[in-house]
């Protein structure tokens, strides 16, 4: 892979402590030697990866002049970090939490920094993870000590301001034994072309509880190639969720690895495609220990000429007896030209398991619409109520309930736009 900007030199110029620098350069070299993926690979099937032209993007070398960003999406968070074009421009943390040993900030200053990065993503999931390893300007860490509960969500907001920017957000969340934390990460960009390659690593130590919600509200010309990897240890609970609303082609791959006995994984997402955008979700529910359970619920709507992809694999390894796994993907097509792909898969190596998967792609339910219309609700309003109601179940389940109202508002805005074109 030869690109004038994504080189080992560019990676080296990002600096950092020696362990990070070495890691960056090694990743950049590995990236330079790797081809970009193609649709022929199963995990990229149905995607638009063939359209990716890295020449159009470059890393941003200078901190943004305008550091003003919109107010937080959540009132009084436990901590709030704001990054613009990959630069950390603002951070605040509740002093009481800091005093309790909670760390939220630049990863390089976190306790045990050199062990945090790559602690879950021991192998890069794809070349874009290599790019993130090489070019993430300011990796962020959230570390919650043993037994500490962080009541309010930790909020991380990314804004991509510069046209042609390639930004590589990196977040590591480590919840020590019996800790409890919820994280809201928001991605926004302007209308110009941009590439966002976020990686999130989550560790839930024994009996810890971690909730993560990634809200993607990127501009219509932004590409996103993201990955979330979570590791759940014994009797812990990890809830990884996403809201996919913006972007041109926006992909999130989620790997939920249940490696400790009795671990629980929840995967919850909602997405709403419009215009010509494509929202692409890949999930892996990996049961690698006995008595683990995972529940996946992904619900999406595609309008106009947009498309969505859901492909998911439940993998139950040989030793994972007593596994309980659910996988549900439902899609509503609001227009004839819209397209939704839904491919659930099972790979089971143990007999003592309960697995269920379910997927559906259909237009808006005619009976539901008729019911509302028969009471005097006009057709477009009926459609809006049914679609909003369709997402209700997902909104209710999100691990960061503080974000529900804003998300319901974003969905309503998309539905209003839908009514507007009719």
């Amino acid at each position, binding site marked *: 892979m030869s690109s004038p900007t994504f080189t080992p030199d560019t990676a080296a110029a990002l600096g950092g402590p020696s362990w990070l620098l070495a890691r960056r350069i090694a990743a950049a070299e590995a990236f330079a030697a790797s081809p970009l993926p193609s649709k022929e690979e199963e995990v990229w099937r149905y995607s638009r990866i063939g359209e990716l032209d890295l020449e159009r993007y470059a890393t941003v070398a200078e901190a943004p002049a305008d550091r003003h960003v919109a107010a937080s999406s959540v009132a009084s968070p436990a901590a709030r970090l704001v990054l613009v074009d990959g630069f950390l421009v603002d951070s605040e943390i509740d002093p009481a939490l800091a005093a309790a040993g909670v760390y939220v900030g630049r990863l390089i200053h976190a306790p045990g920094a050199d062990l945090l990065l790559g602690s879950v993503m021991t192998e890069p999931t794809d070349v874009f993870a290599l790019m993130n390893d090489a070019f993430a300007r300011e990796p962020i860490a959230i570390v919650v000590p043993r037994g500490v509960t962080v009541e309010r969500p930790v909020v991380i907001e990314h804004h991509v301001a510069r046209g042609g920017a390639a930004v590589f957000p990196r977040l590591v969340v480590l919840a020590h034994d019996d800790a409890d934390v919820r994280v809201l990460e928001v991605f926004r960009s302007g209308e110009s072309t941009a590439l966002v390659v976020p990686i999130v690593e989550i560790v839930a130590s024994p009996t810890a509880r971690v909730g993560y919600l990634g809200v993607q509200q990127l501009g219509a010309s932004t590409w996103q190639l993201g990955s979330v990897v979570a590791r759940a240890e014994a009797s812990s609970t990890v809830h990884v969720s996403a809201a996919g609303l913006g972007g041109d082609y926006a992909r999130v791959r989620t790997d939920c690895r249940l490696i400790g006995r009795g671990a629980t994984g929840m995967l919850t997402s909602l997405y709403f495609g419009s215009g010509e955008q494509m929202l692409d979700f890949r999930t892996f529910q990996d049961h690698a220990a006995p008595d683990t359970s995972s529940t996946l619920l992904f619900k999406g709507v595609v309008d106009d000429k947009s498309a969505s992809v859901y492909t998911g694999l439940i993998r139950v390894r040989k030793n994972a007896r007593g596994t309980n796994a659910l996988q549900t993907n439902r899609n509503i097509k609001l227009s004839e030209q819209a397209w939704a792909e839904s491919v659930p898969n099972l790979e089971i190596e143990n007999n003592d398991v309960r697995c269920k998967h379910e997927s559906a792609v259909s237009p808006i*339910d*005619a*009976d*539901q619409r*008729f*019911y*509302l*219309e*028969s*009471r*005097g*609700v*006009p*057709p477009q*309003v*009926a459609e809006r*109520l*049914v679609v*909003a*109601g*369709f*997402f*209700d*179940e997902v909104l209710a389940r999100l691990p960061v309930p503080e974000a529900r109202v804003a998300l319901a508002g974003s969905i309503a805005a998309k539905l209003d736009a839908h009514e507007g074109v009719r």
Partner: protein
Amino acid sequence: MSELVISGLHASVRGKEILRGLDLVIRSGEVHVIMGPNGAGKSTLSHVLMGKPGYEITAGSVLLDGVDLLVLEPHERAHAGLFLAMQYPTEVPGVSIEEMLTEALVATGHPHGGLRARLEAEAERIEFDTRFLDRSLNVDFSGGEKKRNETLQLAVLQPKFAILDELDSGLDVDALRLCSRRVEAATHETGLGVLAITHYKRLLDELRPDFVHVLAKGAIQVTGGLELAEELERTGYSQWIERDTVETSVSIAGFGDDPFADPFA
């Protein structure tokens, strides 16, 4: 005084003619009951009147105070004053009765400020637990809860005419009494005209019919008063049943492939 006039109505589903020239006139405050065998077209009539997609009207007219309902969208028929209490009310996840009725009232320009209070007052009249007001419409409701929910909407929307498509099915005795009493009250309070479709006479213990009609072979065969319903309770519909209807109902009942076999043999 309002008037719902159905004249010479013919309707088909997937090319099969179900209604074959149905005539009926309902005026404010009147209670009309339609009884009839399975497959006679009772539910088709209710769906066609409300404008459910999937039916083809081949002839006839339906006028509400002179307004041609058949050219209107379902929500416009509702605005014109028609209400359908469905036999199988649809589950609508994530939408509450209050959200739905707010939108319905907004669409007609009616004030909806006091909606919550009206819902609660009407719910109390039919002993419908107000916790259902905040739940998704019909989702995980029992049969009786669904019918109470339909009756509640009828009471709040105050239509000119209501079609009750087997309101009695799935209702326990208490709920049936409360719901039919509420409808009966509306005929006096707001001059509601009622077209009640039923198989059973028990609905008529509270809802006093002015007219009882037998619908068979896609048309009204005979009209009478309460005594007709009583007679039907004793004699059944055998004299109006078509051969093909008999075959259908017998095979549905699970008595085997031979429609003429003795089911008790």
